[in-house]
């Protein structure tokens, strides 16, 4: 197998004294979608936020173990967090566009990188919005405030905003849980297109969603990684009893 683009090695995370992740070893191959599933509070979101160091923002968090991204230890002292987060983009549970226009939302990351050329920006906006499957809906009012869009549209603008900086890895933290079924479906379609160009890692509490879109699925329970395998295998023939119980709806 090829070298994984991202991997964790014995990753522990403590909130104060409470151990939220109990030694996670997980590899992510390039491209494709990996879904992280598990009941609430099992640590799947926490794990996701370790991958681009968003947990740094929370006080009183201790992390041990390694997270490797392209042979670079993410938690090494010489890691440039800003550069890392440009490579490992993130979409959150709540759609969180800035209170600016759609256009300015999408180019935010490029502006940070100092891109001024109007033509480059215009092209990036169109490309990203097309990739996020929202271009046709908003192309006529790019300068409208993004907060005026519906929740599903806002979430796709957020995806476009991340895609505009061309990350390698796309982290999604329950991207559809705040949306209605129709919007969720559109986002799923979007992700299915994105998996050819990006390494997509998505947290979901929706098992059907995982089985519909993911190439691989990882099952978390109480801070531990119980099982990881190809999605089909996971749902048809789980190896562990706990996985079997969870996906057949016996708990969670």
């Amino acid at each position, binding site marked *: 197998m090829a070298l994984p683009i991202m991997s964790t090695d014995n990753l522990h995370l403590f909130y104060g004294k409470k151990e939220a992740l109990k030694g996670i070893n997980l590899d992510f191959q390039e491209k494709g979608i990996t879904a992280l599933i598990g009941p609430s509070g099992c640590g799947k979101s926490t794990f996701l936020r370790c991958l*681009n160091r*968003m947990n740094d*923002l929370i006080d009183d968090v201790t992390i041990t173990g390694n997270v490797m991204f392209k042979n670079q230890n993410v938690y090494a002292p010489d890691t440039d967090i*800003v*550069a*890392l*987060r*440009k490579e490992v*983009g*993130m979409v*959150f549970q*709540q759609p*969180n*566009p*800035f*209170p*600016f226009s759609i256009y300015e939302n999408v180019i*935010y*990351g490029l*502006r*940070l*990188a100092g891109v001024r050329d109007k033509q480059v920006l215009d092209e990036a906006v169109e490309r990203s919005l097309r990739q996020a499957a929202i271009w046709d809906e908003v192309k006529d009012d790019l300068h409208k*405030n993004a*907060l005026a869009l519906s929740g599903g549209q806002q979430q796709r603008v*957020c995806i476009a*905003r*991340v895609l505009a*900086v061309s990350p390698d890895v796309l982290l999604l933290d329950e991207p559809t849980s705040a949306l209605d079924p129709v919007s969720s479906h559109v986002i799923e379609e979007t992700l299915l297109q994105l998996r050819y160009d990006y390494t997509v890692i998505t947290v979901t509490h929706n098992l059907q969603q995982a089985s519909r879109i993911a190439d691989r699925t990882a099952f978390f329970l109480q801070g531990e990684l119980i099982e990881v395998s190809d999605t089909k295998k996971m749902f048809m023939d789980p190896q562990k009893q706990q996985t079997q119980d969870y996906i057949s709806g016996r708990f969670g």
Partner: protein
Amino acid sequence: MDKIKEKLQQTSQATRSERRGRFISFLALILILVVVIAIFWFVAAKGLATFFQNHINVWDFLSGKTWDPSVKGANGRPEVGALPMIVGSFLITLLSALVATPFAIGTAVFMNEIAPRNGAKILQPVTELLVGIPSVVYGFIGLSVVVPFVRHVFGGSGFGILSGTFVLFVMILPTVTSMTADTLKSVPRYYREASLALGATRWQTIHKVVLRAATPGILTAIVFGMARAFGEALAVQMVVGNATLLPHNLVSPSSTLTSVLTEGIGNTVMGSLQNNALWSLALVLLIMSLFFNVIIRIIGRKGELR
């Protein structure tokens, strides 16, 4: 059956106490309304008397450069030109807001974004303390520290707009700071997360997202500070020099609407022109305060729409 009917038709205890509560709060509202209207009516009646009873031209009042109500001027009318005070008030307000704003934003950003724990622990009580100091104390410090300092560094007598600006700067700083800090606090956490997750540094996040999202609130804070500066009387009067002259420069003695009012209102006879003219100044003050209020409301409403 009849018992239930009877019970339902009776006014219950809860309904009665609800009515009583509504009556009391309605009464309080009426009282406050009456007080506000009475103040407006009183100041307006007195202030307009200058123009209707003493037949002073409104334009002469607003644009005249000489203030000496007891002396008749060249045109045979008393000299009641309020322009020096209006200019003084505006200059001192604008300058102090201009000086205070960067400091206030800087302090608020430090308190909220850079050192939320220690910053808030130390700076919060300090700013609150600054609000609590009586204005006469500010004036006294201004008189014994700021005025000599200005005289020494910038020349002149030390009394003037510049000293007033320095004193007011310290006085409005806590107001603007704490209001700005509140606005920054209300900027949702997920804006910051989204920005950081896109590879922004903390400073870029503060500058491009937090401050930008908070702009309407910060503007409101500044206008509030200006309203305070405009209305402050005692401390300003102690350092501004109280010469009713158009200010030539920032260190020449001048005066503001409030300083002339506090100085003169006890020394004039009710109903005389001198007294009425002071009321006209008060009317100008009141209208300006109203104007500041309207601006605050407009900014607030714009902020909601976003």
